[in-house]
């Protein structure tokens, strides 16, 4: 054994160092993800034996009106979240000035980013409170009455997604600020000499250089919108009457509250299939970026 070790340690030590992390990650994260696909082909209450049902869960899903509500809401989330990159870029442009005091203001902008989504949910719950909330205060100034957004099935998803936008904008802002710091000064200077200003400069000189950061901001925002869960769970628990649920939340509800783990797994799998396209797109972009930097 010692001889075997001495002869092979040059590769065995790295292998041993890699294994704990790799095994834990593969077992808990990767294997579990695949197992879900397997579970989705069963009828299972979470405790007893699993009964093989083939694609029955998916067939049921295709006929479940709630599934389409969730899907539609995920799309609404996606559309609203698409505001995060441009607003984040606008804020980044505003604070990208070297003036005394700007640094502290800049970090204040980032605060929503470090708040837990539960915190954001509670904070916006207060904003939307129909009697005393901030929104009512604003409506009151004009002599109006604020709608009870969270208990209105037409507005609940809009309200929750808008609240979710808050930290997402901050995140995009951080990314764009990093991008602005890496701009090529010579190109900007050349642009100025050529008389490019304001919008033209942004459009033709700055944005092309921000394309990589912009790509990351958009990809991360899409993924964030698709996997939204916390805000829905905290602000509306999917209500009223399931009108503000999203796939992630519907999956949780079917599994934990209705003990339909197989059905829940099927929803998770559908969400996963939708997301994998975006994840692959994102990874592809990351690798491309890494190659061009190397």
């Amino acid at each position, binding site marked *: 054994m010692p001889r075997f070790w001495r002869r092979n340690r040059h590769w065995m030590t790295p292998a041993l160092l890699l294994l704990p992390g790799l095994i834990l990650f593969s077992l808990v*994260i990767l294997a579990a*993800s695949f197992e879900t696909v397997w579970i989705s082909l069963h009828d299972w209450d979470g405790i007893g034996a699993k009964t093989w049902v083939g694609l029955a869960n998916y067939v049921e899903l295709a006929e479940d009106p709630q599934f389409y509500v969730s899907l539609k809401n995920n799309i609404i989330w996606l559309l609203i979240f698409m505001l995060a990159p441009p607003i984040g870029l606008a804020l980044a442009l505003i604070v990208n000035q070297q003036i005394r005091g700007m640094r502290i203001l800049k970090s204040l902008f980032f605060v929503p980013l470090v708040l837990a989504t539960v915190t954001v949910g*509670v904070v916006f719950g207060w904003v939307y409170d129909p009697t005393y909330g901030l929104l009512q205060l604003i409506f009151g100034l004009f002599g109006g009455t604020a709608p009870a957004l969270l208990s209105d099935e037409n507005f609940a998803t809009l309200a929750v997604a808008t609240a979710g936008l808050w930290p997402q904008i901050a995140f995009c802002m951080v990314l764009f600020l990093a991008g602005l710091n890496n701009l090529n000064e010579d190109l900007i200077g050349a642009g100025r000499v050529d008389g490019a200003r304001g919008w033209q400069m942004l459009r033709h000189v700055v944005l092309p250089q921000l394309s990589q950061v912009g790509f990351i901001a958009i990809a991360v925002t899409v993924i964030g919108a698709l996997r939204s869960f916390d805000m829905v769970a905290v602000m509306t628990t999917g209500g009223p009457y399931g009108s503000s649920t999203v796939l992630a939340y519907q999956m949780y509800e079917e599994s934990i509250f209705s003990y339909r783990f197989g059905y829940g797994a099927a929803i998770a799998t559908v969400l996963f299939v939708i997301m994998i396209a975006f994840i692959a797109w994102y990874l592809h972009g990351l690798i491309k970026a890494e190659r061009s930097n190397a």
Partner: protein
Amino acid sequence: MYPRPIPEDAKTKRALYIGGVTLVVALWLLPLVAVMLTSIRSNEELMAGNYWGWPQKFSLVENYTAVFEQTAMLRFFLNSLLITIPSVIGVLILSTLTGFVLSRYPFRGSNLIFALFVGGNFLPAQIMMIPVRDLMVRLSLYDTVYALIVFHIAFQTGFATLFMRNFIAALPGELFQAARAEGASPFQVLRHVVVPLVRPALAALAILTFTFIWNDYFWAIVLTQSDAVKPVTAGLNNLRGEWTSAWNIISAATIFVALPPVVMFFLMQKHFISGLTMGAVKG
């Protein structure tokens, strides 16, 4: 710099600009400021309908002691520390090892392993929820802090590996060549070359993963049940159900939950931001 910098000598313009940005920040943080104000407002004032006026009487001490004495928030807070600190330490150790190997020992399949670590991080939590929950039940870890610790270490190691690999790959190669020329074993290289040099990266990573884990809500409600193990995020949400009308107490509890990550962010801002942009992973 873009947009055009406002020149040093344009004093009024600078002052106006800063004033304008301050106004935007104030609007931006208005929801949070409102909650902070409510957290120091007395119950009588809320009853009387003074929700938005300046507080007549500051009940900072009363409200926050009420949070400690009348709710289980202190317990939740301790639980969060019990979960977060060991998880962060575990992530730092494992990702230093994986990052070191993946950056310095090229082998066939190393890129694939790396891609799995990174890709796994973007998976929606729901795709692994049922099996992970089931696994914890079978290991009798369900509803203990260990379930959350094990899960968070496993999950965050994905992101942290990306982070550490990039950092270690950027270290000067001569150091590694010299160490190898002297016949140092991989383990010695790790101990004497890598560990002393990765401290700044570990600091950045520690604060990032601390924030992610502290703020987690989904796994907190999936893997725990009893108040004795619940972290602050799940605790806060339950509190809301119990104290529906006592907005001052809920607000105080909310600030209490938000404080550790916010304080850490302000203490180690540079690390936090550089970590976030480097990983660009948080979704």
